């Protein structure tokens, strides 16, 4: 039994590429209008709940302000990102990866157990007997699979005027188009937050083996 199944490995690297390009092109798009609003409308910063910083060229794709060029990338990578997540979800449900490894149990939600996990994490003790992932890992991966990535996709669909006639309820669910746009932005940074913690923990837990296993599959320990 491999540590990471083939579909997990393929999806992991495809998704990493999609998320990086979508995030960096998204920051370029954000530079076109830096205000975020709640509700249906909003312009010129009037009634905005926040003004986000202008993101410098080294953070964006393309590396200079180019709304059309950034939209080309964003609109292209949205496809492998959304289709990839859909395929991965179906695969996880079929190969039981979700039920076996990612689902949390009621016992794990006890404060004492959570605190124990946090302490072990801070001590950089990554041993956890029995289950593949500990509670914090389940929570992190579960949030990414179940909340961050799908909400990115659905809020992206909700801000597309061409899809709104097909699913006006989706825009209403978010509380209006500008709310959907705000949530799209917040989820992008939540995903970035996961990315930072994920990379940090890979670096702290033997990066060479971690990266090799995510390519070759590795051995279940």
């Amino acid at each position, binding site marked *: 039994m491999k540590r990471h199944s083939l579909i997990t490995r393929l999806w992991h690297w495809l998704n990493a590429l999609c998320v990086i390009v979508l995030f960096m092109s998204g920051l370029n798009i954000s530079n076109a209008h830096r205000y975020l609003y709640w509700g249906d409308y909003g312009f010129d910063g009037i009634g905005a709940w926040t003004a986000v910083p202008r993101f410098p060229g080294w953070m964006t794709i393309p590396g200079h302000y180019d709304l059309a060029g950034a939209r080309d990338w964003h609109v292209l990578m949205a496809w492998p990102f959304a289709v990839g997540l859909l395929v991965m979800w179906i695969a996880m449900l079929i190969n039981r990866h979700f039920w076996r490894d990612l689902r949390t149990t009621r016992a794990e939600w006890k404060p004492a157990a959570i605190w124990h996990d946090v302490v072990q994490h801070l001590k950089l003790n990554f041993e956890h007997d029995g289950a593949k992932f500990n509670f914090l890992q389940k929570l992190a991966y579960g949030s990414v699979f179940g909340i961050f990535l799908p909400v990115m996709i659905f809020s992206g669909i909700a801000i597309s005027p061409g899809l709104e006639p097909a699913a006006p309820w989706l825009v209403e669910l978010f509380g209006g188009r*500008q709310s959907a746009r705000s949530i799209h932005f917040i989820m992008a940074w939540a995903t970035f937050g996961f990315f930072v913690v994920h990379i940090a923990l890979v670096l702290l837990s033997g990066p060479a083996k971690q990266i090799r296993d995510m390519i070759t599959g590795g051995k279940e320990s």
Partner: protein
Amino acid sequence: MKRRNLIAGMAGFMAAGCSKVADSKLGQSLFEAAESWHLKAHRALADRQALAPEFTKADLSPTFKGNGSVTVDSAFYRTQLAGGFADWRLEVNGLVATPLSLSLENIRRLPQRTQITRHDCVEGWSAIGEWTGPQLGLLLDAAGLLPEAKFIVFRCADKLYGKDYYESIDMVDAYHPQTIVAHMLNGEPLPEKNGAPLRMRIERQLGYKHPKYLTAIEAVASLDGINGGKGGYWEDNHGYQWYAGM
């Protein structure tokens, strides 16, 4: 500082790689393919006639932002603006049986549609306004659209950075019930900054597809050979997508 440089370096590597792809033939054809998948997906998921959401007067934004061209820099436009556009003409021509030349009075006497819709700019902002005008399909039927016509091109009086503004849509959007030639915004004649005296409403696409200061509606078989050949000012000059439904 070192770590920041490393992150910047990696981001720069991504950006450089992306610009290499974007500049290549393969990259360009991928972008075009992705655009057409979005169009096909939208058309498959929504009925051709499916309406963009309509709002109530309570939902109107306090004002309606003017963006892009906010006036037309010509003596003719100044005198027309001052005189209620008495000599303004809207031509309907190209692949039609009977070309039309309509005054504002002619347009106001046609059956009207009023709709309160949300306008989404490609930059990210939205405004809500109440638009009134005849449906484009009505004008096309009156002119007798020929079967060879595949696109409708909108000609405008304004220039942006020295180039003529224009736009184009296909027949699905041309005959969409909410595609109207608007001459009123919020119950008043169209303000100068919003495209007086006439602008298009193409409600299922982003704002740059709604041309202002409208002078002619032209039915064509192909967009090739019209200005830059990509179907619009932003498409030709700045690389924006022709289909702006996302």
